[in-house]
């Protein structure tokens, strides 16, 4: 499923499947199994910016956890640079939706958290001053110079998310995994951070997988948008995004290309919502089971229907 024109994949997902055990409840004393992800195969090229959208509960966070090595898949495997992922590693860093800053550490200490115990180019551990220098550098990169000594509770939501991004970048991973990082922010701050993220992506050449539930955000940021189906999550379609020249001062979001791509992704997602309703998925029970689930009987007729 490699997009044409990309070199050897940085990340390959091979037939990823994940199930969860649903705890027994009063109504359902035996408990049950819930398929969160089913047979996901996807390849991401080095330096690519891939966005991932899907209905709530479609398994986006689960997929990101698997990529990060925080969760093991039940089926399939994840390869990074051809090597199987068995746990968290220095080549991948995660930015969480809820910032996940360490509240007892200042902004600078949060950024240098991942550097403690890390080795520099010469193979020796980074000294305290080297770490502080790095922290300052990355805080500056995300536009937070001068906020080094602030504690997280002294920062705004947007600032916290910048610190979280700086922390992931300071770790110097090849791959940045981001789980709805801008969802909790107001529209202005979000757009500002989106542009900063794109700038950082261009200047550092990282491979980024970015989860969002915002269609605009997915289309604006991604070179490709991966659309997941509603639960159980499968890869429904990959949409290539080409918005043309990004360097101009024009408002990309109101351009024809943007509107067209946006509509395409919107249709794919909307279809999922409709399908879920038709299949009775609107009646998903609190334990996660949908009794009249008819997934395998439903033909996949979605390709080419959109736009």
């Amino acid at each position, binding site marked *: 499923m490699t997009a044409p024109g990309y070199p050897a994949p940085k990340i390959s997902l091979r037939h990823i499947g994940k199930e969860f055990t649903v705890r027994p409840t009063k109504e359902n004393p035996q408990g049950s199994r819930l398929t969160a992800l089913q047979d996901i195969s996807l390849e991401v090229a080095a330096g690519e910016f891939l966005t991932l959208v899907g209905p709530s509960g479609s398994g986006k966070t689960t997929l990101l956890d698997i990529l990060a090595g925080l969760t093991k898949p039940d089926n399939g495997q994840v390869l990074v640079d051809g090597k199987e992922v068995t746990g*968290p590693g*220095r080549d991948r860093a*995660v930015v*969480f939706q*809820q910032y*996940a800053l*360490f509240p007892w550490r200042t902004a600078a200490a949060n950024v240098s*958290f*991942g550097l403690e115990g890390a080795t520099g180019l010469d193979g020796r551990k980074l000294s305290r001053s080297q770490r502080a220098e790095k922290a300052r550098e990355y805080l500056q990169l995300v536009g937070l110079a001068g906020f080094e000594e602030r504690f997280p*509770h002294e920062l705004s939501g947007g600032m916290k998310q910048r610190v979280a991004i700086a922390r992931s970048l300071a770790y110097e991973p090849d791959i940045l995994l981001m789980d709805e990082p801008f969802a909790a922010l107001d529209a202005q701050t979000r757009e500002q951070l989106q542009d900063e993220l794109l700038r950082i992506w261009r200047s550092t050449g990282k491979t980024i997988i970015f989860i969002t539930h915002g269609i605009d955000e997915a289309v604006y940021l991604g070179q490709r948008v991966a659309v997941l189906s509603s639960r159980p999550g499968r890869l429904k379609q990959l949409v290539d995004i080409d918005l043309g020249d990004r360097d101009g001062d024009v408002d990309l979001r109101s351009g024809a290309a943007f509107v067209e791509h946006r509509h395409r992704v919107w249709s794919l997602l909307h279809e999922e919502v409709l399908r879920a309703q038709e299949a009775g998925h609107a009646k998903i029970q609190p334990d996660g089971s949908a009794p009249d689930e008819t997934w395998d009987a439903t033909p996949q007729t979605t390709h080419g229907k959109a736009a």
Partner: protein
Amino acid sequence: MATPTLTKTASSRSWKVGVGEFFGNCRGVTSCPTLSSLVQYPARKGRARRLGLGSNHPVPAPVGVRTRVPGTGGHQGILPPLHEVLNALGSLISKGQLQTHLAASLTRSASGFEIAVVTAVVLGLLVAWYRSLDRFLNPLLEVFRNTAALALLPVFTLLLGIGEISKISIVAYAAFFPVLLNTIAGVRTMDPLLIRAARSLGLSNFRLFQKVILPSAVPTIFTGIRMAGTSSILVLIAAEMVGAKAGLGYLIVNSQMSFLIPDMYAGILTVSLLGLLVNYLLVAVERHFSRWRTAVGSQSL
């Protein structure tokens, strides 16, 4: 450790003036009930008998009531005026006795307290982290934590004698549970997202404990440590009253038995000051380590 001896020449000390003043000032009972309510009479009746004081002697003097003490030939106050107490304190200090007793008490409580804090924090982290350990230890811990430390004092004395070890142990026991329970609570209430974040940054289990779980539980742990500080002093004083040759508890009880009432109050005053000081220090340390917490309450409004 050198055993300090209290001067037995009680009657030779010049505090008859104070007695007069005591009666003078305290004619109306209302003017002096507070300090006297501090006086405790643990097992005094038995002691009084053993000392041959005669069983018809009015022993447990109720609040603010004057009492006669035979052998001194005059009225003795159970509530000497403050300057008498301060004088006694001064002379105890100048003779070096107070320092010796204070040092004895501090050594014991500090050792017991340290042992308790270290073991309780380590065990608390493990119990909170490993569910199986929790299931195994929980019934045991429930029984012990609901057994008042002082109730076990005779057991400690029986098992470990009346020496230093039994005193340090009972202090450690009393300080152990507040720290343990607060450590467990501190870890249990921590944000699991932070653990995921730390893991995603490649931390090992040990580093996770050291850099994430422990610091995030520190404010809660310190609440426990502060509670433990108070209770360890309390328990130690009680233990020293029962069987010891030095220490503030011994000073208090021994002064009382020797009718050096101002000395007794000097001891009590020292205990109060020590308690205040310890609490103040622990609060300061707690505040230092909890700086990062969002201020709640009137200050944040």
